[in-house]
């Protein structure tokens, strides 16, 4: 279906794909070389674990965002949604402690709540976009405000903290690991691989791309456009739930600043990775590389005294733009 729509442009597209493929990887390798050159500890086990583990939240969300954007949508609400889910999780767990005692049952109930709230929140976004026919930008801008306000309200303007004993039980989910690889990294890797397979090898992935490049043609090709779109938002919601499950044990708290600007980081990672913002083409492994690029910039700036901390934002901006220029610049010329 997507092939039909783009057959005339096929030769040009192959050229472009070559550059697309190498752009983000080249940027990532350059950053790793720069980091290793600037600080001897950069490649140490501890630092690599830190960077990968802190990328996991945005990474897990960005995998879902890749599908939403590929299908021509957008979700600005994921950061607020993560904060809201974290708030609900903490409240549910604190509430169950007297019933179940501080142990794994409580933590599992909290995880279940996170997935459920994520699913419902994603479905709300998806239904408003597909059934009510409102632009994704507006719908998710609205729900972004709603989720953010709800978590502020739940926390009474302050911070929700997880019961101390539950926290100790739950803590290994962020700090522990499998064969020395921290759990958030494992989960992020598994989700990225599944995402890549779904995007490449399944009808669902191809339908997303078809809808993103031309939803009318997709509709005439008997694709259930609304259902596929709705599912991309639902999956994203569930992934936000999973990211929150990994996030809560880290600091054991949620407040109105939790997940601030995650949506923009996730979208930036998706675009750096080579997915087209207008939709129609998506690449999950590129997204994973994009997430790593974003975390590495922060990490390298913290590990060195090269520039004034006031300029950190500017350096990030320049590198994000450069990473995209690397993969698209030559096609314009």
């Amino acid at each position, binding site marked *: 279906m997507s092939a039909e729509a783009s057959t005339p442009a096929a030769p040009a597209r192959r050229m472009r794909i070559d550059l697309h493929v190498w752009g983000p990887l080249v940027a990532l390798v350059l950053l790793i070389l720069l980091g290793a050159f600037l600080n001897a500890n950069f490649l140490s086990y*501890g630092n690599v674990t830190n960077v990968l583990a802190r990328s996991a939240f945005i990474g897990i969300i960005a995998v879902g965002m890749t599908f939403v954007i590929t299908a021509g949508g957008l979700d600005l609400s994921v950061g607020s949604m993560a904060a809201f889910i974290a708030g609900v999780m903490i409240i549910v767990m604190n509430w169950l402690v007297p019933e179940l005692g501080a142990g794994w049952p409580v933590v599992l109930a909290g995880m279940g709540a996170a997935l459920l709230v994520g699913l419902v929140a994603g479905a709300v976004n998806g239904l408003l976009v597909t059934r009510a026919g409102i632009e994704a930008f507006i719908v998710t801008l609205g729900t972004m405000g709603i989720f953010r306000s709800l978590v502020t309200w739940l926390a009474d303007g*302050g*911070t929700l903290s997880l019961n101390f004993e539950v926290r100790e039980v739950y803590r290994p989910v962020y700090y522990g690991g499998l064969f020395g690889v921290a759990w958030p990294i494992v989960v992020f890797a598994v989700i990225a691989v599944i995402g890549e397979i779904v995007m490449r090898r399944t009808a669902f992935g191809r339908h997303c791309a078809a809808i993103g490049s031309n939803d009318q043609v997709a509709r005439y090709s008997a694709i259930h456009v609304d259902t596929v779109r709705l599912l991309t938002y639902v999956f994203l919601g569930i992934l936000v739930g999973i990211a929150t499950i990994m996030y809560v044990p880290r600091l054991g708290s949620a407040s109105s*600043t*939790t997940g601030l600007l995650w949506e923009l980081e996730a979208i930036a990672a998706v675009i750096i990775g080579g997915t087209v913002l207008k939709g129609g083409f998506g690449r999950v492994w590129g997204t994973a590389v994009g997430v790593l690029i974003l975390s590495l910039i922060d*990490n390298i700036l913290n590990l060195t005294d090269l520039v004034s*901390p006031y300029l950190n934002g500017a350096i990030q901006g320049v590198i994000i733009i450069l990473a995209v220029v690397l993969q698209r610049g030559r096609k314009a010329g």
Partner: protein
Amino acid sequence: MKKRAMSLVGAALAAAIALPGAALSQETTIIGVSIPAATHGWTGGVNFHAQEAIDRLEQEYENLDFVLATAGDAGKQVSDLEDMLATRNIDALVVLPFESDPLTGPVKRVKDAGKFVTVVDRGLAQEGIEDLYVAGDNPGFGRNAGEFFKEKMPDGGKIVVLRGIPTVIDNQRVEAFQTAIEGSGIEILGMEHGNWNRDDAFEVMQDFLSRFPEINAVWASDDDMALGVIEAIRQANRQDEMWVLGGAGMKQMIERVGDNDTMVPADVLYPPSMIATAIELTALKYVSGAAIEGRYILNSTLVTPENASQYYYPDSPF
């Protein structure tokens, strides 16, 4: 009013001077309160204390009415002030400006309309607009923290510093801190912005820990940041190597100080309840007729295990 250490700078806050109060108490006075929305722990505390002070005063004095507005950014706050002036008919305004410069003009218009103006925490860009100024002591905040480091590290040592959001407040604190530790042999290995945010501070501290093999102490300069820092230190398993000084007076941190936690030996106050002080003082002008105009600076008191119980408010969300 809450009992707490305060210093009175140049203000004539006399005990109630008996004015003919009958005329004052007959008609209702409306006091507008404009504060930033609860976007982080400290402003959450501001919201809590503002609401609490308003509830208490409205119950106590029938002739006082309050209009509370919270703003998510400076532009919204300007609109709030315009609405208060145009539609709510306020007699006095208590404002914690989101940012000094954008709010200076709008607050001046309120003043020019003949209203009583109280400015809290962040001063306006132009002097002499407000009738009453209530604030924490930012240079004192940095200085007291610095003095504490000097006392705890008589032979010097290696520290890292987490700064807040780049603002005048942050600069004043850090400059005073650096002046206070000058010549003490305390070396600042690195300084980065943690933006008064727990997650950011966690990541900055992780990176400090990878970068420096020896750190003796951390000036986290804020309690939210201190909590993130402590978690990062715990992850690296270097709890025994260093201690952390936060700031502001978050209840969890005050509690840890009181429990003689070795990682949290003290805290420096920058109480969000200063908004309550400002509201109460402004209200006092209308219910007592006392002279209120002037500057009112709250001390950045050092909280230690000895006095921690005095500053612990279990009901506050902050």
